[in-house]
């Protein structure tokens, strides 16, 4: 890296917005996942789109790799940069450029916080539907990179369903406009390809999102069960009835107790093996009331011990706070927490949950489950102390077994957290060398030098081209053997 690079960057963004000292750079060494740690060479915080473009063009001229980062709430190590790369923190690009209520869209910069966009849309009777648990901190740019989900994505869809158009800054410093405000693309659906590319294709500098009307009626139900299996069967019964709740979330006993012991206590019954949080919403109050009655009856018939309806907005918020802050509440259980992410077919939920419980017992680990049951999107959370190397190895081994169990059930390794660094080793379990090679080739169309967020998403050594070129080498990227 050129000795002049730092001063040249400072000339663009101002020295206050360049972090050179190691003590400052260490602040950015992790994201929301405590198992990976990398210290970037430099940290740059551009304040305008023009500064960002100038920074990326300077890095292109120097051939320096860089990693775009939003609020750093990701859970896959995806926004980490090592000593060879510059970290571009985009949180200062936080302007909402336009809200067009008539056409139900907004144009924002990448650093706009998810919840702030929601709040800004509310006076127009609209919402930005994707609501990851970190929505009070995470940014829309990060949501686009990760194709973020959230509890209400069951009905409203994930980030990919809400992005209409993007202005993208490629690694070489050129700008590309993809998508259109009406949602039709200029040619192939490059917006669809870009969303979820984990920063490997460039930086979304302007994001046009779809807003949806706020529901006029909402009913929130809390059902508790004596077993995870019957709670899972209740989920299937609701879906089979043709009703799509806005959200259908499950928590197991370990998670319930962690929440109830915390400041986020929501009144969940501690003796329940599982609770389901079911939300039915809509624009037509009569329909919501009628569907709520049907769902209540289905929950009871499926074996719920009790079904409680939030009697007020305050009670609803309390029930949701418990769910959304569950990851924080689990901080009470141990020093560190690995929030895992996998998806299985809904019908496989009961069996997979039992398998996860068996794996946890085998390794003597505490695994708490809080997840999007309606989508089959599991979040097994492992509580541990990362300073204990033996324990850390057990967590890695248990995580690998959980992933393998989900894949064996017909599922996948991530539903909303992304691959990042953390799940590179699992990619060859679900994609063959040909498919990984195709992904790698697409990345090179956008970024031929592979300078944006290097070393993430696709394990290059498992791609067909690499294997063909290195016939004698041992395949890499495989999950570690389980003890």
């Amino acid at each position, binding site marked *: 890296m050129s000795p002049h690079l730092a001063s040249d960057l400072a000339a663009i963004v101002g020295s206050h917005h360049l972090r050179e000292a190691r003590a400052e750079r260490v602040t950015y060494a992790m994201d929301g996942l405590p198992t990976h740690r990398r210290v970037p060479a430099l940290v740059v915080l551009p304040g305008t789109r023009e500064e960002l473009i100038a920074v990326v063009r300077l890095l292109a001229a120097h051939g320096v790799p860089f990693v775009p980062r939003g609020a750093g709430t990701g859970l896959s190590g995806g926004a980490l940069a090592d000593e060879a790369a510059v970290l571009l923190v985009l949180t200062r690009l936080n302007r909402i450029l336009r809200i067009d209520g*008539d*056409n139900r869209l907004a144009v924002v910069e990448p650093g706009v916080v998810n919840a702030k966009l929601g709040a800004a849309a509310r006076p127009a009777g609209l919402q930005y539907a994707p609501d990851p648990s970190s929505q009070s901190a995470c940014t829309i740019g990060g949501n686009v990179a*990760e194709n973020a989900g959230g509890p209400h*994505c069951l009905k409203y*869809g*994930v980030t*990919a*369903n809400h992005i209409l158009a993007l202005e993208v800054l490629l690694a070489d410093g*050129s*700008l*590309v*406009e*993809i998508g*259109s405000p*009406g*949602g*039709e*693309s200029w*040619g*192939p*659906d*490059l917006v*669809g*390809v870009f969303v*979820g590319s984990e920063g*490997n294709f460039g930086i979304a500098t302007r994001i046009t999102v779809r807003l949806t009307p706020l529901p*006029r009626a909402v009913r929130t139900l809390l059902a508790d069960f004596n077993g995870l299996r019957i709670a899972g069967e209740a989920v*299937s019964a609701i879906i*089979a*009835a*043709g009703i*799509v709740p806005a959200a259908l979330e499950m928590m197991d006993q370990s998670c319930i107790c962690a929440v109830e012991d915390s400041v986020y206590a929501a009144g969940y019954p501690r003796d329940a093996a599982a609770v389901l949080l079911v939300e039915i919403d*809509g*624009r*037509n109050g*009569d*329909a919501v009331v*009628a569907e709520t009655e*049907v769902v209540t009856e289905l929950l009871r018939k499926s074996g719920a011990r009790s079904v409680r309806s939030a009697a007020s907005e305050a009670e609803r918020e309390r029930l949701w706070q418990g769910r959304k802050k569950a990851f924080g509440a689990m901080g009470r259980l141990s020093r560190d927490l690995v929030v895992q992410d996998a*998806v299985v*077919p*809904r*019908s496989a939920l009961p069996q997979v949950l039992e398998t996860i419980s068996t794996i946890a017992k085998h390794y003597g680990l505490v695994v708490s489950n809080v997840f*999007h049951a309606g*989508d089959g*999107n599991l979040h097994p959370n492992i509580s541990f102390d990362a300073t204990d190397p033996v324990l850390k190895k057990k967590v890695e081994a248990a995580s690998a077994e959980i992933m393998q169990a989900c894949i064996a059930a*017909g599922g996948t390794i*991530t*539903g*909303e957290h992304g*691959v990042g660094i953390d799940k590179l080793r699992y990619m060859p379990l*679900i994609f063959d060398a040909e*498919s990984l090679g*195709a*992904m790698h*080739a*697409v*990345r090179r*169309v956008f970024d031929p030098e592979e300078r944006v967020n290097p070393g993430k998403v696709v394990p290059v050594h498992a791609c*067909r081209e690499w294997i063909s070129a290195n016939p004698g080498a041992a395949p890499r990227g495989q999950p570690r053997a389980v003890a």
Partner: protein
Amino acid sequence: MTILEKVSALLGEGAILEAGTDRVPRIAPGSPDAVALLLGTAHQEGWRVRIEGAGTWLQSDAPADLALTTRRLDRVPAIEPSDLTATAEAGIGLDQLRQQLADRGAWLAIDPPGLAGRTLGSVVATATAGPLRHAFGPIKDHLLGVTFVTGDGRMVQSGGRVMKNVAGYDLTRLQAGGFGAFGVIVLVHLRLRTLPRADITYVLEGAREDLTQIGEDIAAAGLTPAALELVSPALARRERWVLAVRLAGSPALVAADEAGLGAASGGGRFTPLRAEEAHAFWMRLAEGFSVRPVTFRIGGVPTASDELLDLLQHQLGDEWISASPAAGAIRWTGDTNIDRLQRLRRTLAGLEVPLTLERAPWPLRGAVGHFGAYREGVGPLVAGLRRTFDPGGALVVATEGS
């Protein structure tokens, strides 16, 4: 050896079908592996290949050394009603797939234009959504994953069979609406819904501007129709424009929306269609778009719908039009020429409205292209992606036109 002799040796006699009127050999591989074998050979031999489904949508007239039809890829390996997912090969007709799904209580909530037997792969490759896009979104929103074969015979998987999936880049969305430029789709993993327990269609005739207003009032009243489609008189075969409202879902939801429809229509009297009438109405609408020589779609913001409909009528005449104003989507079919279509595309580009040519005779689509008027920087990316997935240029697809 001739091409047919080579193909026969490769895939067997059974894969060779009767050629069409242009006498281009028509090959129907019987499995995804056979598609890969054929395209790998085509790449090596330098054969130019055009892709066909059932031959009911896009005209089978692109100049090529052979036509690859997916019609023998018609198996449905999995339907999982409890998970609301299915896996189907690309060559299955939508009518057959619908029936198999309905038998299991499941529903693929798409109603693309074209004949009932149009293949699933054709619908996905062209991303041709119909009126149900109003509530259920574009075709890509119904896909969990696809398997496709590249122009040089590589088999690539994307996505999976579960409801949420962010493992790897989303190549499924590249294939949805790629018109086959990035490979031949052979297998599709689908997101399903429960077959609606209530499904009723209402229609109202009137002046276009009045119906547009009623459509907006319906949305403002909080009704949630599955489809809200504005249809031109010629296409609807009625005296005046028609606003068709389809309510589908749980009985509770449909009953509540029915109750609100009268109030929202400002005194306009919607007529309910009997089940068979509704089926015939939507079927006629879909089939209408495969009758005339040229069909295209445009997508603008909802508030521009009226202006765009005026523009279409002014530049191309009052032909067969169907619009989903709230979704900003308009489809036109009729007869036109290269100059008028290129002029229209340029005009629309100035309004930030893309025009996608869905079907047209080869001389027109070869000149105009399915896509065009790219925004800044898009052209080189599309060209790069084409080189990646079809390095030898074996697949004959008029992406940008000449």
